[in-house]
């Protein structure tokens, strides 16, 4: 009943390799987000999307790219993984309020990525 799924759940990769994380939603929400969570930093926004092919950067976007070719799928790519990108990555979706703000986020289960 999650409405949002992420894959993979865990991944270990080598420095310098490209990595793609996938997020899939069944809620038909316009807005989708990628966050990373690190001890001492909380949740930080990497990129977000407000529609098919419409994306924008968050506060920690360097080294990451995203794509959204369908409403339901939002991909996060680490072009050349570095050890500093070892983190837990969460995808999230949110409906938009009639007043224009965002209702509560629903998060995916997360991807634990380790770059060695």
């Amino acid at each position, binding site marked *: 009943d999650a409405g949002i799924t992420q894959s993979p759940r865990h991944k270990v990769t080598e420095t310098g390799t490209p990595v793609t994380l996938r997020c899939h939603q069944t809620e038909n929400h316009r807005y989708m987000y990628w966050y990373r969570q690190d001890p001492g930093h*909380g949740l930080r926004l990497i990129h977000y999307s407000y529609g098919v092919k419409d994306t924008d950067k968050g506060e920690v976007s360097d080294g990451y790219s995203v794509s959204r070719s369908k409403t339901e799928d939002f991909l996060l790519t680490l072009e050349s993984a570095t050890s500093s990108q070892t983190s837990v990555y969460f995808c999230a979706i949110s409906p938009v309020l009639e007043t224009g703000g965002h*209702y509560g986020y629903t998060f995916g289960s*997360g991807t634990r990525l380790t770059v060695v």
Partner: protein
Amino acid sequence: QQPVQSPQAVILREGEDAVINCSSSKALYSVHWYRQKHGEAPVFLMILLKGGEQKGHDKISASFNEKKQQSSLYLTASQLSYSGTYFCGAEASTGNQFYFGTGTSLTVIP
């Protein structure tokens, strides 16, 4: 820009009450509250829109003072299941910016 939460950590005995505060430097449109258990994703608890409303969710309620750009989460008669890290999320009145707070670790012991 990240909202500041206090306290950073709190330990309670079952049945005790707690208050978690969230303070922003920006004018806010809304405040969200989330709870995250260890190894799991954050779960949305409630949203408060500007207007100073107070909302409730079982024995967990919250208030939002938009003039002070502050929100407080109130946990009453705490249960073991309340343990986790609580995050506020603040949406600015302009610019569509949304930031999560620094987090508060709450542990309820028997």
